């Protein structure tokens, strides 16, 4: 919006950087799309788009919750463990039907989120440590509940994972709806404003009489619930519960998507569109490298460079 009001001054470094911060991630996605359309055979097929989108959907869903947490100047390391926990609980309760199983999953996730939020908001523990404890303990619990991979044969779960409406898979629809919902919450609701105010300055929010503790607890519950949704969807797609490896390093993918998407780690700002684009950017980057038979080592190094570049572009932004 700043661009519209500014007169067309010569391009100085600050303006370029600001443009990069706001639109860099979209430009990155667009550039990767163009590059792939030109150099990757069979890239422009519905099948390929479907595959990429289905793969990125769980990351997007987890990243939405992570964006909310990061907006409060927190971080949630427990999301991968919550995904695994959701998978285990789904497998345990699927015998009673899909809906009851989902309700129990939601209860478990809410409990983890509540524990995270209570540690952060009531006890005053740093978010990284509070959620680290639940990251370790949560995956342990997932493994205690269901020690190994288990095949799930349930028609309704299977159709959740592979069904579609008018050719668009449920996974993508759910991710899109959740993204719109979270963006609405951030932009248009009191809760969203309070969340950003707390991330901007918690002491100031407290002095202003905002319900800091309640908002923080709700944010961590939201993050855990979204992670649980991602866990259930990933389980539905695999048609198996895999407590050992499901959601491994998901916390880092989600944080990366959020940060690459232009949400500063210092809190007070949340960019939902950027977060979705950030997840897509990393997915496309990985897919591009893999499709051209570049080894996984390259993918990881490229990812590392993209992360540093994105944060470098966004530095100094946020507070002050």
């Amino acid at each position: 919006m700043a661009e519209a009001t500014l007169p067309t001054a010569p391009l100085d470094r600050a303006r370029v950087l600001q443009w990069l911060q706001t639109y860099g991630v979209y430009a990155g996605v667009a550039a990767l799309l163009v590059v792939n359309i030109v150099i990757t055979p069979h890239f422009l097929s519905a099948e390929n788009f479907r595959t990429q989108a289905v793969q990125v959907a769980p990351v997007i869903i987890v990243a939405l919750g992570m964006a909310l947490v990061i907006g409060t100047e927190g971080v949630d390391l427990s999301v991968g463990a919550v995904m695994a926990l959701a998978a285990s609980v789904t497998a345990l309760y699927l015998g009673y039907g899909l809906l009851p199983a989902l309700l129990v999953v939601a209860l478990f996730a809410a409990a983890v989120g509540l524990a995270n939020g209570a540690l952060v908001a009531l006890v005053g523990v740093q978010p990284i440590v509070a959620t680290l404890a639940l990251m370790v303990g949560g995956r342990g619990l997932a493994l205690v509940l269901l020690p190994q991979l288990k095949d799930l044969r349930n028609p309704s779960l299977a159709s959740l994972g592979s069904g579609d409406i008018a050719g668009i898979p449920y996974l993508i629809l759910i991710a899109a709806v959740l993204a719109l919902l979270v963006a609405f919450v951030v932009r248009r609701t009191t809760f969203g404003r309070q969340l950003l105010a707390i991330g901007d300055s918690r002491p100031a929010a407290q002095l202003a009489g905002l319900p800091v503790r309640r908002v923080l607890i709700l944010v961590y519950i939201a993050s855990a619930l979204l992670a649980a949704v991602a866990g259930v969807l990933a389980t539905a797609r695999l048609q198996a519960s895999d407590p050992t490896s499901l959601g491994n390093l998901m916390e880092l993918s989600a944080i990366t998507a959020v940060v690459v998407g232009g949400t500063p780690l210092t809190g007070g700002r949340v960019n939902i569109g950027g977060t979705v684009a950030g997840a897509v950017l990393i997915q496309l980057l990985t897919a591009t490298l893999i499709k051209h038979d570049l080894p996984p080592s390259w993918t990881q190094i490229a990812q590392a460079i993209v992360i540093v570049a994105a944060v470098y572009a966004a530095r100094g932004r946020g507070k002050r």
Partner: protein
Amino acid sequence: MTVTKADVPVTTASNEPAGETEPVGSARSERLSALVQQHGALAVLVIVSLVASFSFDSFATGDNVSNMATSSAFLAIVALGMTFVIITGGIDLSVGSLFALGGVLAAWGSRHGTLVALLLPLLVCGLIGVVNGLLVAKSRLAPFIVTLAAMLGARGLLLAITDEGADTFLIGKGSVLAELGQGTTLGLGNPVWITLALFAAGAVVLRRTRFGQHVYAVGGNEDAAALMGAPVARTKILVYTLSGLLAGLAGALNAAWLASGVTILGNGMELEAISAVVIGGTLLTGGLGYVSGSLVGVLLLKVIQNVINQIGSLDSSYQQVVSGAFLAVVVIAQTWLGRRRQLM
């Protein structure tokens, strides 16, 4: 600008807990809370070990203790570097990858002699530490993100060296390097002695040198430290370099112990190291911490793992549940103690 920045940490630190604001305790209660913070983990370690040795015949045996000591040594060395980083208020997520990278480089280099096998991991992991430090100190990027990127990058480098994880490099039996990892002196494994020596040196550096003072000063209040003339950037670069070097060294020793460089090692090690440091009484907010505490934290984690393994009926996944719960309890206790001290 400098002035406002200096104000921020102070106000958040004192205003964050919205509870009681008046200092309740006397100097004695402050001393007590400081004592608990510094030695609480040690007391718990002693109690857990005593209970375990009465409960399980196999716990307090020479074999079990020396096994626990050796397997703790590698994590302890990593935690030592992490302690320095955390005292400056930073964090280093790359240590797990650097540990694995150091091991593979040592095993690869061992065919050119022990010197290469030790210098190569130190050089590469130290360099990655320097890059971490430069990005944190000079470019002022968040340590969390910088070291996360280094974690991915180092893992990628590791895969590139090992032909995407397909190659395994072995360390020849009977070489000096193998002896360094597998040999024993006075009944304890060599890695244990090396670890003890490193911790002694670390404690001296932190408590008795100018660099150590700078580490605490930077973590306590960066802007105040800068105003008082402490070389903030240099200190930060040095702690990340140190952390990289120690992670690489730990990986090399571990490879010597296992007689091969294993690519899949070190996953989640950064979190274990952070847990150990935090349990040992070092505050993640920086400015306060103890090298000895980190050693105790590592031992406590390993003893708990060992106890859970001894309870044969318990699945090893309970280890994680117990470790997580334990970390939560310690952190809650620390936060309360720390809050009381901050309010004094």
